[in-house]
C-alpha cells in the first residue's frame, strides 16, 4: 500500500515547528525519525497527516552532562544513544537497550523522542524511562512543561503530549557509583519487539523494576520492588507474577508472558549481583 499524507512542512526551528502544529487544524503530526510513523502511513494506519518534519531542527539532539542528571535531546538517534560515552557511563540501561531495538538501519534514523512519543508498550525506551525515573520536557505554544515518566505514558500509544506540543528532551538521573542497571528480554528473533522485557535498577534508595509488553503501557512492578528491597528474590518473583495482567495475543499467551516475566526477574537479579562481584 502507499502512504497518503495531507501535506509536508520542514520545520526550521522549534518555534516554527510549534507554529506549524498550530496551523494544522488538528491534523498536525510530528515527523522525527519516521521509523514508526512512515511505516504506519505506508500501511494506511495513519492518513491525511499534515507532517511537521522536525528531523533537521537543531538543538534537539545530543547529550549534555548537567551535574546530577543527563539531558538527552529528543532527536538523539538510537545509534547515538548506544555509542555515547556519557550515556554509557551514567545511564548504561539506555545504551544496553539500543542493542535490543530493531536493526542497524532503523537505529540509524529512529530517535529516542520518537520512541517515547510513540509509546509502544513493547518498546524498550519507555520502560527504561520508568525504571530510571526520568523527566520528559515538552514544549507547546505556552512554553515548556515537564512530566515525570510515571505520568507520561497514559494508554496504548498515548502519552500526555497534546496535539500542539513537542517532546524536546529527557532528563535522567546519573547512576550512583555502585548503581546497577539491567535489561532482560525475550524476543523470538533479534530486533523483534519483545514478548516480555524487564528493566531492573538497583540504587541506594531501593530497587526499581519496570516491564514492557505486559500491559497497554510500560509499568512499574511496585510489589516486586518492595520484596526485592527486603532481599527476597522468590517473594519478588511471586509478587511480580501476581501483580501483572499481561495480554494473550498471536505472539504469546498471558500465562507464558507471566512465566517469562518471573524468569527475566531472576536473570536480571543474577546479572545485577554478578556485576557487583
Amino acid at each position, binding site marked *: 500500500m502507499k*502512504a497518503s499524507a495531507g501535506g509536508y512542512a520542514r520545520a526550521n526551528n522549534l518555534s516554527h515547528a510549534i507554529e506549524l502544529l498550530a496551523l494544522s487544524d488538528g491534523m498536525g503530526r510530528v515527523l522525527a525519525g519516521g521509523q514508526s510513523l*512512515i511505516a504506519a502511513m505506508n500501511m494506511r494506519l495513519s492518513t491525511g497527516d499534515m*507532517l511537521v*518534519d522536525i528531523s533537521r531542527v537543531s538543538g534537539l539532539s545530543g547529550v549534555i552532562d548537567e551535574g546530577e542528571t543527563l539531558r538527552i535531546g529528543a532527536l538523539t538517534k538510537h545509534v547515538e544513544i548506544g555509542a555515547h560515552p556519557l550515556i554509557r557511563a551514567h545511564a548504561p540501561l539506555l545504551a544496553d537497550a539500543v542493542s535490543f531495538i530493531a536493526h542497524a538501519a532503523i537505529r540509524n534514523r529512529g530517535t529516542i523522542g520518537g520512541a517515547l512519543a510513540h509509546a509502544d508498550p513493547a518498546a524498550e525506551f519507555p520502560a527504561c524511562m520508568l525504571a530510571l525515573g526520568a523527566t520528559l520536557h515538552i514544549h507547546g505554544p505556552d512554553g515548556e512543561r515537564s512530566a515525570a515518566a510515571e505520568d507520561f505514558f497514559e494508554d496504548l500509544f498515548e502519552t500526555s503530549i497534546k496535539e500542539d506540543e513537542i517532546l524536546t528532551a529527557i532528563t535522567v538521573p546519573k547512576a550512583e557509583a555502585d548503581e546497577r542497571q539491567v535489561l532482560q528480554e525475550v524476543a523470538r528473533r533479534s530486533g523483534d519487539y519483545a514478548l516480555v522485557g524487564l528493566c531492573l535498577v538497583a540504587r541506594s534508595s531501593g530497587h526499581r523494576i519496570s516491564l514492557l509488553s505486559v500491559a497497554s503501557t510500560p509499568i512499574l512492578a511496585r510489589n516486586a520492588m518492595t520484596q526485592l528491597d527486603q532481599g527476597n528474590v522468590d517473594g519478588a518473583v511471586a509478587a511480580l507474577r501476581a501483580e501483572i495482567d499481561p495480554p494473550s495475543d498471536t505472539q504469546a499467551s498471558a500465562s507464558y508472558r507471566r512465566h517469562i516475566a518471573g524468569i527475566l526477574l531472576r536473570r536480571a537479579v543474577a546479572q545485577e549481583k554478578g556485576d557487583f562481584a
Partner: protein
Amino acid sequence: MTKAFADKVVIELTVNGEPVEARVPAGQHVVDFLRQDLGLTGAHASCEHGVCGACTIRVDGSSVRGCLMLAAQLDGSDVWTIEGLSDKEAIRDLQEAFIARNALQCGFCTPGMLVAAEELLAQGGVPERATIREHLSGNYCRCTGYEAIVDAVETVAQQRAGQVQV
C-alpha cells in the same frame, strides 16, 4: 488549509554522485522515488514497513530503510544505491565474494544485503560471525539460509584486514 504545508516538495540532492532536482509528492517514500522517478530499480520495495531490508540504501553515510524515509526529507542529502556503488566499484570485493560463495540465488535481497554488509565492513576489523548475523538480522533472504552470506562477509573482512590472499 494553510499554505504552510505542501502537497509537492522541491528537493535538491545528489544520487550516486550526480546532482538531482525533483518535485515529489509529500507522502512518497524514497524507494518509490528512486525506482519510479529516477529509474534506479536496484533497491526493492517489498514489505514497506521496515521489516525485510530489501530497500536498504545509503543516505549521508548511513544505511537506512528507503521505505521509511520520505523523498521530501532528502533535500541536501547524499544518496548511494547499489547502482552507484557498483559503478564506482566501491564494493566489488564484496560482490565477488557473494558470487564465489553462492550468497544469493534469486537476488531480490542482495542490493539491500550488500549495503547493510558494507556498513559493517566499513567499521574495520574482522567481526565475529555472530556480529555479522546480528548486523544482517534486519535483511531477509528467502533463498540461501544466510550461511553463505555470512561466509562471504567474513571472507571480505579477512581479505580487507590482510589476513587472507585475495
